[in-house]
């Protein structure tokens, strides 16, 4: 759109400043990953690459990464299924209590993680543990899925509202049954919204520490928990800077690809622009 030159310059300048604000601490992380001091002391007086080589050979970080990916995928899959089910119900049907449902879906993410964590912990130990199901990766996935449903729901419901139901009606009129309509019309229309929702759900799960700490059993260590535990070990702190820097770099490509697939960085995209 057209803006005056000064407005354009002003906005660009502010954007630049905010980006510096965002990236400066990450730069500190990167610099500290080469800082020879064990306690992040500043300014660094000597340099080392030992944290990177230690991170590369550390088995704990690899198994924690694997646990986090498993938890993230598990939670995301559940969130995709449940989130899109609610989204279809809310967008395509009118029924008593519809508003309350949107409210209910949002609650787990709107309430602070510590509350979700305590509540799930209390109910798991009163219900699941007596049944012989102990705390483990499974309970972490249950916990994460609970607050991930909302992001899938919001992406899909926005898409469904935007596309309306006329295409589906047309398919039905032309003789397609609900399953065929879903497969050939509805699903392609919401596919990119699902990808965006799934990405966000995975991201939420991947960086979660509070709910995780209340729902994980012994021997289950997600990456944030590994980082947490290592920060509290002498001599081990700086290794996490190397891990964090490596993760950032490793995630740029998949995030970018996922955004391309979802046809835009935000969930709101015209159907006509589907690739």
């Amino acid at each position: 759109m057209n803006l005056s030159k000064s407005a354009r310059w002003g906005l660009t300048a502010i954007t630049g400043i905010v980006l510096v604000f965002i990236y400066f601490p990450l730069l500190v992380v990167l610099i500290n990953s080469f800082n020879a001091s064990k306690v992040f002391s500043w300014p660094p007086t000597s340099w080392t690459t030992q944290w990177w080589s230690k991170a590369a050979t550390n088995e704990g970080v690899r198994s924690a990464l694997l646990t986090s990916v498993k938890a993230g995928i598990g939670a995301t899959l559940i969130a995709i299924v449940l989130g899109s089910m609610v989204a279809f119900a809310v967008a395509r049907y009118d029924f008593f209590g519809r508003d309350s449902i949107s409210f209910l879906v949002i609650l787990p993410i709107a309430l602070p993680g510590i509350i979700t964590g305590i509540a799930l912990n209390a109910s798991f130990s009163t219900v699941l543990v007596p049944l012989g199901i102990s705390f483990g990766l499974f309970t972490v996935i249950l916990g994460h899925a609970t607050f991930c449903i909302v992001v899938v729901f919001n992406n899909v419901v926005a898409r469904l509202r935007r596309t309306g139901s006329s295409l589906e009606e047309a398919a039905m009129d032309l003789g397609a049954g609900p399953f065929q309509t879903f497969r050939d019309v509805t699903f392609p229309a919401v596919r990119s919204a699902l990808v965006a929702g799934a990405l966000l759900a995975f991201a939420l799960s991947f960086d979660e520490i509070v709910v995780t700490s209340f729902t994980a059993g012994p021997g289950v260590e997600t990456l944030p928990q590994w980082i947490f535990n290592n920060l509290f070990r002498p001599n081990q702190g700086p290794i996490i800077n190397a891990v964090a820097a490596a993760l950032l770099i490793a995630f740029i490509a998949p995030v970018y690809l996922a955004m391309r697939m979802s046809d835009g960085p935000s969930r709101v995209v015209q159907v006509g622009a589907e690739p």
Partner: protein
Amino acid sequence: MSALATEPMTSPPSGGSSSGSAFLYRHPRLRLTGLLTAPMLWLGVLYLGSLAIMLVAAFWSTDEFTGQLIKQPTLKNFHTLLTGQVYWVVALRTLGIAVAVTVIDMILAVPIAFTAAKVVKSRGLRYALVIAVTMPLWAGYLVKGYAMETMFINNGVIDWMLAPLGLKGPGLGIPATIFSLAYLWLPYMILPIYAGLERLPDSLIEASSDLGASAGKTFRGVILPMIVPSLIAGSIFTFSLTLGDYIMVKIVGGTTQMFANIIYDNVGVANNLPLAAAAAVFPITVIVIYLLAVRRSGALDNL
């Protein structure tokens, strides 16, 4: 629950579909039930049930010595919380920090979201900008937290940078906590605003300036009212995340306590689930009232 009204399909399928499919077609209510059963079991039973179990515990007490739950109803926990001055002080402090964090994030987020959604012309650059804003989410909460400590601590990065000017940073404490939380939650504010702005047709803004409105007036009169739901959506994140945070304040807060510390110290440390559950009523109330208040604004669709 009843399925009504908006059922669009009027003619039966003329063939090519399975019998199950046709059956479902003829029974929209059944379809709705099918769609809602699993999610409602999860959210309505698992989640609300868990919250209920926790809230019931707020009326119990623990054996002071062995820490076993005593499941006899009592209002003792609420009495302790309501009469202890310290709890009020901490609650108000926490609300203040949450408001400050939210305001800072709004101020920072609007210009960058506007630039990404409306100023940048090339699609590639727009993606790059949004990715640049969301990337820090992948760096990990704790890693960023300790980066903040390195920055704010005495003789840390900020002191080191200010030293040539003869100045000193604020050190660890409430300002460092506000800054760090604002930093951590910023992407959660930028994304909904970006989405809201992207939806906003350019023509509306252009019409406003064609009609002679200044940039400032266009912003206040046209853009701001349209992105209010997005701002509220972002504020739900910043507010709720701040109310629930107890780790960052331990890292950069010096001697500061926030409300979630009271909850955590009781449940995670002192093993007093009942008192923690009673304390949890405060953030739950604040958030639920806020959600109900903004429900009509459409903000909840923007999360």
